[in-house]
């Protein structure tokens, strides 16, 4: 790589990081009780009033952290799916993996209730099972012997399955108590509901475990995004790597949406924008995609909170307002 590109890439990474920081500060500062950046720093340093501390540490910070973590998870999940299917339109939401995870969340809440208890730590696991089963069904339905996976067919199967599962969620949810029904309606619209520290703790280990694993596979992802036969020729165990990476992508998306609600399009947009900024080499593009995912979701959640006080518009709705046209633009371009 030449010096000019290296410099440009370094700049893009720094700018993205600064944007994330700005989005973070704005998100903390806005809401029912606003907080100036100066007060924010003071409060973070432990010199705030009890009321400020309550707002920051109990209400806002955990919600913001959950949003950032979910954004990162969804973006990387989308990036992996796009590379292993060689389809720039792949996204855990569009493919129905999020909906599958959502169905598992329904079962979870039917069993344990929607309050946050100690059970919450196994929620991501539940979501993972739901997401995995969905992914396997998509895989089986879009796989043709001798041809492999056709990206177009995979997308269609995913969209269909996603709609079917969403219907199943609503049907199931309508059979249970009114407040639980509201919970699911909100979940499906993509309202960040996990706004407590336990949700941060439930999500964080997954990312800490999976993100380094994905990053170590940058090279494999690079070759897999070229051409399947070429990857085999280069000595990649394509079948095995595809299963592992698919599992990781599902785990990332499922754990994210288990606490964030069914959010689509972040996994589509973040990798796509990142690629157009720093190119498709995964060593560079994965970190940028991760930060962009966090920024996107954080901005969407903040806008949603401000626009319709106090209940707010779900972040998933805001993301979709930007994401759906973006998706159509990509479709048209293809």
């Amino acid at each position: 790589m030449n010096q000019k590109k290296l410099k440009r890439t370094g700049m893009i990474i720094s700018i993205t990081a600064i944007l994330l920081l700005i989005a973070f500060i704005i998100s903390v500062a806005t809401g029912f009780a606003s907080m100036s950046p100066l007060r924010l720093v003071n409060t973070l340093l432990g010199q705030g009033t009890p009321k400020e501390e309550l707002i920051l540490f109990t209400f806002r910070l955990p919600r913001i952290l959950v949003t950032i973590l979910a954004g990162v998870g969804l973006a990387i999940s989308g990036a992996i799916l796009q590379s292993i299917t060689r389809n720039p339109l792949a996204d855990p939401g569009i493919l129905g993996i999020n909906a599958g995870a959502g169905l598992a969340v329904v079962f979870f809440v039917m069993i344990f209730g929607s309050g946050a208890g100690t059970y919450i730590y196994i929620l991501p696991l539940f979501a993972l099972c739901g997401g995995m089963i969905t992914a396997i069904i998509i895989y089986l339905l879009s796989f043709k012997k001798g041809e492999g996976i056709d990206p177009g067919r995979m997308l269609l199967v995913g969209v269909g399955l996603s709609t079917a599962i969403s219907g199943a969620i609503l049907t199931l949810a309508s059979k249970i108590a009114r407040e639980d029904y509201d919970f699911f309606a909100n979940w499906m619209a993509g309202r960040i509901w996990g706004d407590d520290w336990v949700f941060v703790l439930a999500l964080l280990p997954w990312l800490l475990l999976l993100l380094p694993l994905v990053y170590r596979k940058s090279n494999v992802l690079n070759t897999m995004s070229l051409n399947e036969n070429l990857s085999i020729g280069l000595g990649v165990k394509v079948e095995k790597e595809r299963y592992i990476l698919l599992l990781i992508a599902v785990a990332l998306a499922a754990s994210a949406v288990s606490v964030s609600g069914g959010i689509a399009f972040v996994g589509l947009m973040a990798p796509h924008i990142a690629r157009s900024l720093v190119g498709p080499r995964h060593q560079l593009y994965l970190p940028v995609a991760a930060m962009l995912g966090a920024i996107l979701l954080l901005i969407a959640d903040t806008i949603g909170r401000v626009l319709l006080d106090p209940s707010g518009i779900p972040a998933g709705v805001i993301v979709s307002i930007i994401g759906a046209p973006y998706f159509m633009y990509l479709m048209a371009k293809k």
Partner: protein
Amino acid sequence: MSRLFTEDLRIAYGDQVIVKDLNMLIPDGKITAIIGPNGCGKSTVLKTVARIIQAKSGSVFLDGKQISKESTKSIAQKMAILPQSPDAPEGLTIGELVSYGRFPYQRGMGKLNDKDRNVIEWALKATGISDFKDREVDALSGGQRQRVWIAMALAQETDIILLDEPTTYLDLCHQLEVLELLKELNVLENRTIVMVIHDLNHAARFADHLIAMRAGSIVKSGNGKEVMTKPVLREVFNIDAEIGIDPRTKKPICLTYDLVSSNALAQEQIS
């Protein structure tokens, strides 16, 4: 004994047998061209040799060992494959793409060391694309793009390079350029080159060894003079060809040809 050969290879898609009991020998340090009509199984054989397709029975041997039993990375250090018209992701630069050829030598993250960088530089130079290395692959014309893929295969530092129809979709000039490049690599670097190719005259001109296939079996193999003959082409392609000698290259050349009419075939069978 050749480094690369197949033994009783049987390849099938489902129940449909494409290739049966194929014993193919690839001479070392030579250019081998596999020719034959569409659907004769030539690409299938190449893919099986490259371990992209699994054989139903029989084996491919490389350096005396069955490739199905060796680690895929160690094979990738000996043999590269260039599939038919591959696509590069949008925005990838030529330098980056060629660097992916170092995969078989890398562990973990894949940071390039000095050796890797030298090999990449050399591969870019050998294919004459050093000046474009920061350009995006999509921005190139078909002929230049094929050079980039060959450079990537070179970066893999293998003695054997397999190519599936490397000249398809290229114009006359670029077809020749690619074949000249392969010849150069063969002569200067002593690389063994195996290619599936449609153009008979190109095959006869550039390959030292030709393998003519029909319906999954080898009809004839040998040098250009042995394979480019009226009876062989008649049997393989069902054509009545006029073979001459290229005044410039002194290699056999198919001057013109006609379809063998079913009438003529019938008459032949009677007599």
